[in-house]
């Protein structure tokens, strides 16, 4: 029997894309107002703001860290403010902290916003940021690390150990872009890719082709969360958080014993499902966020859906695609959405809510009751798994 302590009651989002003309605060206004209106509450009802730390935008991070959002939006009921930075797992930790604020009574309704505008950061700064984020400045960076290079090495090892083929890996991108093509909030809406498109794109960091790497995007999202009890009074469609598991696997890729993080995902998923009182067969959608195609494979193996080395074939057969028997990553992960830094997990949780409320449009998985979502921070420093439901089992 799970005891839900938190529920999502409102969501707001701008589509991913390139918005050099929009200021970051312009996007913050939009997503926060959307989320408040979607929740059917008033702005004075918000008692706390816990923000996702934006990456590679130090001035914005400072402004948000030091309390500007409640002031800017005129949230006069706000009792406290905080920012969480765990890279791609930031939103996961915002939710954790919100749970504590709600449970302890400091804030019964919490706003969790995120914004990132990559397109106005000079390209050299962006490359340098991602070349050092989650890499060691003494033992890794001097050798020319990039995210693509690091994930290239992980992918190379995965293919070596499992026999996964280039075609199977490329088919992960095809599957993710099929979902994205159905998502009006994706920069790749109505833009699917063929296997040939992926395999003929230029090689960036072997074995990764350009289409197997991420396109950086601008975007923003926000959620309103509250207690399970209050949620059921405010809305007819609360989205309950039922379980949470996490494993730290190490900051530097060079030292990571669990190199593919398969054990980390497996243990975190088990903890999350146990806490929810569910088994993997209860899950209707697996919202895997791993940013690179091999992670979809590793997660399918870690959760116990595919035998080790069989996930690529499983995905290539279409089982995780729209209409497949096991829908995975219904916004297409970062590959399908465009990479918004720490914003991908925000988009992923918003999608969990959409699927459970039944508002996922053409991506809607019929009769969706339970969703499993993953998020990782840094260059893969941790594995976090959460379970969401439209009911409390």
């Amino acid at each position: 029997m799970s005891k839900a302590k938190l529920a999502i009651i409102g969501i707001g989002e701008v589509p991913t894309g390139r918005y050099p003309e929009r200021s970051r605060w312009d996007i913050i206004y939009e997503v926060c107002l959307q989320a408040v209106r979607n929740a059917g509450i008033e702005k004075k009802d918000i008692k706390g703001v816990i923000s996702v730390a934006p990456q590679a935008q130090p001035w914005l991070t400072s402004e948000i860290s030091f309390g500007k959002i409640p002031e800017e939006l005129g949230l006069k009921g706000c009792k406290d403010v905080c920012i969480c930075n765990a890279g791609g797992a930031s939103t996961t930790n915002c939710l954790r902290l919100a749970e504590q604020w709600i449970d302890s009574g400091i804030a019964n309704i919490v706003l969790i916003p995120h914004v990132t505008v990559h397109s106005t950061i000079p390209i050299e700064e962006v490359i340098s940021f991602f070349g050092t984020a989650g890499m060691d400045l003494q033992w890794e960076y001097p050798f020319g690390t990039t995210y693509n290079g690091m994930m290239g090495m992980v992918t190379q090892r995965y293919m070596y150990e499992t026999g996964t083929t280039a075609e199977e890996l490329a088919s992960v991108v095809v599957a993710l872009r099929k979902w994205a093509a159905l998502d009006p909030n994706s920069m790749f809406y109505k833009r699917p890719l063929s296997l040939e498109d992926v395999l003929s794109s230029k090689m960036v960091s072997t074995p990764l082709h350009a289409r197997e790497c991420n396109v950086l995007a601008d975007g923003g999202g926000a959620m309103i969360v509250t207690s399970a009890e209050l949620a059921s009074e405010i809305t007819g469609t609360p989205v309950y958080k039922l379980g949470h598991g996490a494993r730290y696997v190490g900051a530097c890729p060079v030292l990571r014993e669990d190199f593919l993080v398969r054990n980390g995902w497996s243990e975190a998923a088990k903890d999350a499902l146990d806490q929810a009182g569910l088994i993997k067969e209860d899950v209707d959608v697996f919202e895997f966020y791993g940013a690179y195609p091999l992670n979809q494979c590793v997660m399918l193996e870690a959760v116990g859906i595919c035998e080790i080395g069989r996930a690529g074939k499983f995905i290539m057969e279409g089982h995780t695609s729209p209409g497949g028997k096991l829908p995975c990553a219904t916004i297409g992960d970062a590959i399908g959405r465009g990479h918004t830094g720490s914003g991908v997990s925000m988009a992923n949780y918003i999608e969990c809510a959409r699927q459970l409320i039944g508002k996922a449009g053409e991506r809607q998985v019929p009769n969706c009751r339970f969703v499993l979502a993953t998020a990782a921070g840094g260059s893969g420093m941790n594995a976090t798994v959460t379970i969401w439901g439209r009911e409390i089992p």
Partner: protein
Amino acid sequence: MSEYKKPLPVVQPWSKPFWEAAKRHRLMIQTCNDCGLKIFYPRKYCPDCWSANLGWFEASGRGKVFSYSITMAGVEERFAEDLPFVLALVDLEEGIRMMTNIVECKPDEVSIGMDVKVTFRDVTDEFSLPMFKLNPKK
């Protein structure tokens, strides 16, 4: 050599002996004199037993490629002249894994499991970076 534009290692006080030895083209591994752990990367205290009684020994310089990626695009401008280059993880005989570059060969000659040995690149007066080259068994 003063024109080297690429990032240099950000050294901590306890890793100085590693870089001092590297200048003399010797690859050193930190070790715990109490519990015997071979430590990489170097720490202030042993990550197993938190002993401060740490020492150094010289590695054979031989190892095998654990994984690699040929970087062909998407690097900072200062690395662009090196493209394509091989980013790699090498497992030393002593049980230590290091990130490095595989040099002195065509990138497509590299594969997982290959034997390699250390070769030092004198990039500035202060720093020689440990890189690896193929070391085919005779």
